[in-house]
């Protein structure tokens, strides 16, 4: 179908953008790359009175790669995660996940922040943000604040962002030495939303023993869930000696996925277990490579 009638504005500064958001509140919807909002408009599942195109705000296109943090402006396209090698090296988790989002055409328009703000429970980027403990910089007429990923994602397609607020950037912590990251998912077709998506970060000591482990799962509930595994039987062992399968099963027992057209709750739980086992092993082997490389230097 065609989008419903709305009014369109393309403010040229953050100031003007915030004015509009304050004036129209939940009647307004910002559009960045439009890859989440446009389908909703075309399917008439969303009918905002005002659509605010944020692409004309120059600062919103900024991408700052710093030592500890990568600061991603709300107009930075997902495709950049595929083509910018420096960025890929800094946030390898997102570099791995991005190829699984939609297709080149949607990633060329869709933005990193936009996908996070849309908060689809099966989308890849919110899972990454949750695992890494990303922070969202938020602005409104009333001032600015920072929301950490854990309190940002509320439920399916819901965040704690107020209608008059806008995300001015997401801050992603860069990869830490001795920590490996991995992302994997099961979807029905290439580029589809995941049935379940799992991200892991595993840290190893110099002698190859697990010192930290975290996992985040998307698609198993209304929002991505993070499970710290440092206090489990993983700790202090070599990854090949750790009972990965049992640990994964314990986490899965705490999940309450729903059944739908695409997969039953039980199937979702089973693939969660398999994916978790895989990404923990992958993350650990990457951490080991990282350590070997450092020692070689």
């Amino acid at each position, binding site marked *: 179908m065609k*989008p419903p*009638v709305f009014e369109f504005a393309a403010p040229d500064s953050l100031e003007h953008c915030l004015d509009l958001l304050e004036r129209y509140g939940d009647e307004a919807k910002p559009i960045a790359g*439009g890859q989440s909002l446009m*389908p909703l408009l075309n399917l008439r599942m969303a009918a905002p009175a005002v659509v605010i195109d944020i692409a*004309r705000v120059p600062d919103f296109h900024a991408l700052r790669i710093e030592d500890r943090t990568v600061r991603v402006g709300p107009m930075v396209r997902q*495709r950049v995660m595929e083509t910018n090698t420096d960025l890929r090296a800094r946030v390898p988790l997102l570099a791995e996940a991005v190829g699984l989002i939609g297709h080149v*055409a949607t990633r060329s*328009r869709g933005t990193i922040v936009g996908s996070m703000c849309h908060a689809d429970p099966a989308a890849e980027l919110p899972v990454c943000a949750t695992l890494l403990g990303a922070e969202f910089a938020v602005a409104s007429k009333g001032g600015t604040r920072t929301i950490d990923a854990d309190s940002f994602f509320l439920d399916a397609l819901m965040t704690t962002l107020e209608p008059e607020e806008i995300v001015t950037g997401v801050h992603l912590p860069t990869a830490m030495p001795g920590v490996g990251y991995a992302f994997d998912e099961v979807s029905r077709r290439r580029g589809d939303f995941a049935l379940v998506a799992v991200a892991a970060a595993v840290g190893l000591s110099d002698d190859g023993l697990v010192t930290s482990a975290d996992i985040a799962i998307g698609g198993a509930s209304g929002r991505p869930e993070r499970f710290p595994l440092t206090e489990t039987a993983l700790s202090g062992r070599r990854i090949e000696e750790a009972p990965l399968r049992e640990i994964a099963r314990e986490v899965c027992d705490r999940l309450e996925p729903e059944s739908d057209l695409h997969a039953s709750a039980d199937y979702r739980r089973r693939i969660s277990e398999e994916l978790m086992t895989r990404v923990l092993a992958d993350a650990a082997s990457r951490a080991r490579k990282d350590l070997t490389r450092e020692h070689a230097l």
Partner: protein
Amino acid sequence: MNTPSKRTQISITVNGKTYSRDVEARRTLADFLREDLGLTGTHIGCEHGACGACTVTVDGMLARSCLTLASQMDGCEIRTVEGLSGPNGLHPIQAAFKEHHALQCGYCTPGFLVTAAAMLEETQDPTEGQVRDWLSGNICRCTGYQFIVDAVLSAAETMRSETEERDAS
């Protein structure tokens, strides 16, 4: 454009020609191309981003024109399937589609052609896997894809040897 309005004034360059138009704010780029400019090469299949028939490039990057508003495109450069062929006739990808029987009803074809052209601009020597990955966002209900993949790989070869010839001379 700091004040919301139901209509927007845009200036867009399509296949090298610049058009200034006053459009309804909700006009998709796909409808703008087809209805307002008469460029009906861009097809509309699903109208929600699932099929890829409406694929064009915006400032050199692939985009689904059904998921793009004409209002967002002020100042942008668009290339549609009509912009592929040059004064010397068909684009190598178009010629390869004809040669390899990579189309039947042709509904999906503009999207595949534009996508493949964008891919070959970036990757001159793609593997079959890369071709399938780039084309994974385009749906074809007729061909079964094999001939499309064959055509793109053969077009890549043609284009590589053309470049070599050019470089040699």
